């Protein structure tokens, strides 16, 4: 059914989320809050070296420490042959995942897990770690992506040969693969251009920096059944990955979704759970493990650092005729950077006839990268959107006008193949052009920048259900951990279909044994795909409720309608029956066929892509190089805002992460390849005093493939901020910054570099 043109009573309003009170009172249980009888405490020993051969691991002293109950290394996990299995987000190589959880023959980054212990207290576990004697042969390391690509770079994997090049290479390389996307004839396009802009841009690795460190409690029973309590972006993913890494039947594992304190992509895989299960098996006790903040930075995947070269060619009239990008992304210790999406997203919002994009996935001695909100796209758009801004200046045209002229619209063919349909890019540009922010006057020394972003959003497999309680109130069940308010929006969609107020529906997230499979929470897919499943489940329940009413009234079911939460006769011919609400039908459920409920599992197709346009005003302190954000407006096509407050929240949160990425966040390494700033003091994320209010403007171009028109919204907003701020700095100072973050030392250095010239002028 399609509710897009309907008069909606619940969807689009702002009720209080069903899990809200327990979160504001401290009762909500996150991963580290779990306590289980007999629980002991685990701890991981991590490599102090960025790159080293592991010659031997002697755990004997640790094992003898009183209170230590088990010690494990990679020998305690089954050895996995070189195999790929697509259970999580995109291809996950389980061999790589296993040796990321516990190293095999090499330590590949500072922080790489080498061994783990379980003991009666955290203090004993910490002490036992220090007693494990590891002999390393320290090797030269490489971190920077271009250094890792060089011919003489230290090689991380002797069995890694670059894929995507012909003829097949025989020498191992750190370049895991090369990808190419080509449309038209880029060489001819550039020859035809009147104006060309080029630029070389860099980014540093940044971490998702969720405030909750990874944590779990795992309990292995002697019959091979396992219970996992952990916070993750997908408890079905946790179940599947642990089954694979431990060699267990999936049905033997019950994974419980604890509340999750932020993920942003960084919790779409496992680090501690397989290790905790191995320790639980060896010790015969449930094992609790949690990462310290230091470990989160050193040992869990940030996103890639990268270099990007971009070139745009345009005619004098503003038509962009050719575009080129060369992207080099760090993958960390194992292949798998988001180079594919990076290649696809940079030019996806433009209609350009000739495009050439080349990307490289490169391993280096840093933690294995994990997904981070629109993986790959922010890096690519950082370069492209700065270049588009430079192009607008060179052509002497307004930056919005240039984007409108070349903007993707319905029917535009992308450079990576598919054709855009039902998109809202032009509407967001229009909203930006008409917004008061765009027209507001600037004071001297202030600058304004604009940039846009695109993300595909995905659908995928989801399960959701809806059960009618004996008193007519409703329980909705969702297969997806809630990372931002999806319990509210799923409950609202169910309430809308059933015709009841939002407070009559409570949404919970059952464990993996209690609901059908759901793909993980990511890719901006839950409101879309799980919402679709929940809507269909509610529709089945409505059909059942009508059937029960028909039985009660003894009329044909076709003569029953469902209106405003009640069964009513379809017309006066059907009979003069008083309406029956859900409670009235529910009390007779047993007599009319049994309990009333439905669960739907589906694979949602037709996810609608999202576009965002951000406007930012900045002021640059010429003495310190500090950049102050004065005003921020984020405009996005959201399809249909099911719960507008949580949609605004996604837009504001993504923008804030982009601001941090733009101005301060980076991994800083010392000369030994060790992270220097593995804490929140020196890994500087935005704080409340850094930010103004962020105005989120929601443009609603419905996605016709979702019953309520919803599009994914969570990922798009992290893409525009860096270039928007870079363009604002350009506007304020004349400086084109090329390297992220645009932190005070870098801005100061850039100001100093032009100062002599300016003084001379």
């Amino acid at each position, binding site marked *: 059914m399609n509710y897009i043109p309907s008069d909606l009573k619940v969807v689009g309003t702002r009720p209080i989320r069903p899990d*809200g009170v327990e979160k504001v*009172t*401290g009762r909500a249980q996150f991963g580290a809050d779990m306590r289980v009888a007999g629980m002991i405490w685990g701890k991981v020993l991590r490599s102090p070296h960025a790159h080293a051969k592991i010659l031997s691991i002697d755990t004997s002293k640790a094992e003898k420490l009183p209170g230590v109950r088990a010690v494990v290394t990679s020998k305690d996990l089954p050895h996995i042959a070189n195999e790929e299995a697509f259970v999580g987000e995109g291809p996950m190589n389980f061999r790589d995942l296993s040796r990321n959880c516990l190293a095999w023959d090499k330590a590949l980054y500072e922080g790489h897990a080498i061994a783990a212990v379980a003991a009666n207290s955290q203090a004993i576990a910490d002490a036992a770690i220090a007693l494990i004697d590891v002999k390393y042969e320290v090797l030269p390391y490489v971190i920077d992506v271009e250094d890792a690509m060089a011919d003489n770079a230290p090689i991380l994997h002797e069995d890694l040969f670059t894929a995507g090049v012909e003829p097949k290479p025989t020498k191992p390389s750190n370049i895991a693969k090369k990808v190419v996307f080509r449309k038209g004839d880029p060489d001819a396009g550039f020859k035809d251009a009147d104006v060309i802009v080029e630029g070389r841009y860099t980014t540093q690795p940044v971490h998702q920096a969720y*405030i909750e460190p990874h944590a779990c409690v795992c309990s292995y029973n002697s019959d091979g059944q396992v219970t996992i309590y952990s916070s993750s972006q997908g408890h079905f993913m946790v179940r599947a990955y642990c089954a694979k890494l431990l060699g267990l039947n999936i049905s033997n594992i019950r994974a419980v979704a604890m*509340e999750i304190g932020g993920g942003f992509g960084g919790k779409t895989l496992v680090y501690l759970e397989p290790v905790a299960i191995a320790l639980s098996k060896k010790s015969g006790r449930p094992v609790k493990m949690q990462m310290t903040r230091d470990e989160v930075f050193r040992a869990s995947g940030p996103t890639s650092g990268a270099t990007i070269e971009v070139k745009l060619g345009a005619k004098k009239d503003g038509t962009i005729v050719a575009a080129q990008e060369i992207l080099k992304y760090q993958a960390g210790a194992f292949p798998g950077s988001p180079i594919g999406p990076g290649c696809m997203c940079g030019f996806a919002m433009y209609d350009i006839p000739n495009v050439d994009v080349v990307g490289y996935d490169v391993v280096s001695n840093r933690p294995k990268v994990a997904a981070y909100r629109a993986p790959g796209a922010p890096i690519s758009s950082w370069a492209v959107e700065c270049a588009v801004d430079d192009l607008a200046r060179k052509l002497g045209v307004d930056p919005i006008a240039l984007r409108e002229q070349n903007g993707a619209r319905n029917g535009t063919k992308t450079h990576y193949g598919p054709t855009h349909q039902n998109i809202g890019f032009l509407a967001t540009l229009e909203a930006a052009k008409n917004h008061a922010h765009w027209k507001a006057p600037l004071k001297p020394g202030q600058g304004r920048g604009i940039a846009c972003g695109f993300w595909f959003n995905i659908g995928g497999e989801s399960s959701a259900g809806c059960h009618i309680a004996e008193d007519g109130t409703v329980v909705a069940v969702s297969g997806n951990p809630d990372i931002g308010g999806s319990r509210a929006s799923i409950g609202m969609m169910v309430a809308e279909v059933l015709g009841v107020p939002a407070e009559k529906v409570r949404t919970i997230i059952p464990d993996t044994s209690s609901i059908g499979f759901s793909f993980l929470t990511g890719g901006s897919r839950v409101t879309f795909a799980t919402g679709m499943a929940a809507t269909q489940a509610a529709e089945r329940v409505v059909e059942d409720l009508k059937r029960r009413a028909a039985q009660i009234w003894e009329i044909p079911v076709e003569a029953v309608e469902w209106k405003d939460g009640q069964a009513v006769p379809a017309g006066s011919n059907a009979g003069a029956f008083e309406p029956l609400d859900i409670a009235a039908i529910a009390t007779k459920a047993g007599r009319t066929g049994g309990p009333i409920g439905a669960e739907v599992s589906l694979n949602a197709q037709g996810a609608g892509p999202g576009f965002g346009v951000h406007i930012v005003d900045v002021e640059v302190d010429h003495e310190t190089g500090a950049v102050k954000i004065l005003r921020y407006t984020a405009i996005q096509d959201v399809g249909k805002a099911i719960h507008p407050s949580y949609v605004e*929240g996604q837009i*504001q*949160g993504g923008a804030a992460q982009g601001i941090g990425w733009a101005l301060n966040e980076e991994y800083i390494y010392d000369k030994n390849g060790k992270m220097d700033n593995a804490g*929140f003091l020196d890994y500087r994320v935005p*704080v409340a005093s850094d930010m103004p209010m962020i105005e989120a403007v929601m443009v609603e171009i419905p996605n016709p493939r979702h019953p309520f028109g919803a599009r994914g919204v969570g990922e798009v907003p992290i893409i525009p901020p860096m270039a928007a701020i870079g363009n604002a700095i350009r506007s304020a100072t004349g400086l084109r910054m090329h390297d992220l973050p645009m932190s005070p030392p870098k801005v100061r250095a850039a100001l100093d570099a032009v100062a002599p010239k300016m003084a001379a002028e």
Partner: protein
Amino acid sequence: MSKHHVSATINGESVEFLCETQQTLLDTLRDEIGLTGSKEGCASGDCGACSVIVDGKLMCSCLILACEMDGSTITTIEGIAQGDHLHPIQQKFLEHAALQCGFCTPGLIVASKALLDENPNPTEEEARYWLAGNLCRCTGYDKVIRAVMDAASVMRGEKAA
């Protein structure tokens, strides 16, 4: 090594507990006393997720040794509501959707209470600087600040709850 015996007032109640010398108040609250509402985000006083009020002052419980708490009065997130009556700050956080994952929320609510106890009429800038010690990665702080300003207004009696 023998443990310390500590008597303190936590959320208005007399509590006695044992702790090792090196145990922080945060670890003791969570692991010995069972009050898991205060969270560990960094254990180094940088994120504010462990915020508590000790003898009227806002503090990071990860930076306090539990054995120093003998005779102290401590308020944690569990003591902000009165029975089943939410504090205006908690109510406004819910109304303004000032939380997404909810992990930083206990610390933010305790810190906001400490702010309004000291300054019942803060400007937006004062509120932002006071709360700069509470990191939030989900919200971008917009709705948090709106909720705090709105709660302050309610607590000053300027509007109905």
